[in-house]
């Protein structure tokens, strides 16, 4: 499968260099179309008026937040089970992006909730489990940054990620299992979506746009991480050969 092609970092760098410009272009087009549709094509809701337009960023951000954690979980399996060389790079780079999307979904949800429900926050099952997801993302980012050796940090983070993956089904089904203030599932259901296509289509376009954005940033971040490990290897080699670092030695910032 193509995954094995990516095992070699140099090969990965070359492949992503070819693919990235196309992804960036597609992403920009998708956002342009999506934003246009969100504001000018989609109708206003008969109850909520124009505030429903917040949905076009809130829902894709929430989907991405969960998809990102799933990717991290698969990458963690790649580290622990298949020992894929780039799996922990993928997991490490996905964490800040996932945290950012979770943050967007929490904040936009809060801003949508204030005019609609009258409160910025409520401790219901869906909101609480997404907040817990956010804390888990931040915890993983912290874990990555407390260990010097990236390989060891990768293994530790992989274990924590897999244990935390139990939260994902809880988030997804929380609105169905418990009576909550947050509205129940209306798109990804067994019987098919209950939303009208006029609203569903801009939502789908924005979801595609956000997904492409995730992959663009993820791949660029992975390339950066590979470069960072190269720097670390060179520095370790220099230190072990007792080569003087020279007056221009730069500070190693927190990763």
């Amino acid at each position, binding site marked *: 499968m193509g995954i094995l092609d990516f095992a070699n970092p140099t090969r990965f760098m070359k492949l992503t260099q070819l693919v990235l410009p196309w992804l960036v272009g597609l992403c920009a087009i998708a956002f342009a179309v999506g934003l246009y549709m969100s504001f000018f094509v989609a109708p206003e809701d008969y109850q909520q008026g124009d505030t429903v337009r917040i949905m076009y960023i809130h829902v894709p951000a929430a989907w991405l937040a969960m998809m990102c954690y799933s990717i991290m979980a698969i990458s963690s399996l790649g580290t622990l089970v298949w020992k894929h060389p780039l799996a922990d790079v993928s997991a490490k780079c996905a964490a800040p992006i996932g945290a950012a999307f979770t943050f967007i979904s929490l904040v936009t949800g809060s801003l949508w909730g204030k005019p609609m429900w009258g*409160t910025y926050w*409520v401790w219901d099952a869906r909101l609480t489990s997404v907040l817990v997801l956010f*804390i888990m993302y931040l915890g993983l980012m912290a874990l990555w940054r*407390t260990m*010097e050796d990236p390989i060891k940090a990768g293994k530790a983070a992989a274990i924590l990620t897999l244990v935390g993956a139990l939260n994902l089904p809880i988030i997804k089904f929380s609105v169905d299992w418990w009576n909550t203030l947050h509205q129940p599932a209306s798109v990804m259901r067994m019987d098919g979506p209950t939303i009208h296509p006029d609203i569903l289509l801009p939502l789908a376009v924005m979801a595609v746009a956000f997904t492409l954005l995730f992959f663009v940033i993820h791949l660029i971040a992975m390339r950066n991480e590979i470069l960072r490990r190269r720097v670390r290897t060179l520095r370790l080699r220099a230190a072990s050969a007792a080569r003087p670092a020279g007056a221009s030695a730069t500070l190693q910032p927190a990763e």
Partner: protein
Amino acid sequence: MSSWALSLFQRELRLAVRVGGGALVGVLFFLAVVTVIPFGVGPDLNLLARIGPAILWIGALLATLLGLDRLFQADRDDGSLDLILMAGRPLELVVLIKCLAHWMATGLPLVAAAPVLAIFLNLEPTAIGAVTLTLAAGTPALTLIGAIGASLTVTLRRGGLLLAVLVIPLTIPVLIFGVSAADAAVNDPVPFMTPFLILCALSLISLVVGPFASAAALRFSSD
């Protein structure tokens, strides 16, 4: 300000934010505590609004306590503490600078996070402002008093929990007046200024007592 003080301050700040420094993990712990409490007391927003200032203060106190053993432990482990002790600079001033850097890296982010976390607890804007202000005035006291415990336990391998146990009784007055001031801003009978000024006084007292006691403890530990 003399240059050695500035260099020490910059060193402390840089170490705090690097890999293994753990400065911002305190905020994450603060967030975790505030998230966990509604699981325990229930999601009733009115109840949370009433006890909100207390939750934020206790969360900030616990987060500060957890970060305190970073103050001297790492330096002791790699020998820098001995070098600092032998450098001939006034030890009280050294402790003061370390505490200042520690507060900027650990305490100040807590103060900044408090208004955001207050939203989760359904606090009204006056209460949010009052809690943030009292935390800004009180967290330096927590760090300075905590330095006493940190220097007492610096020679112990697993001193972290003992440090917390030693420091908590000393910080109870700060907690009392901090929460009292925050509550006073919302409820009418007691004016906000009375407990708030006492809180400021406690911080100023700890500004003197903390470094002196901590320096004395460090001298004893190094013998």
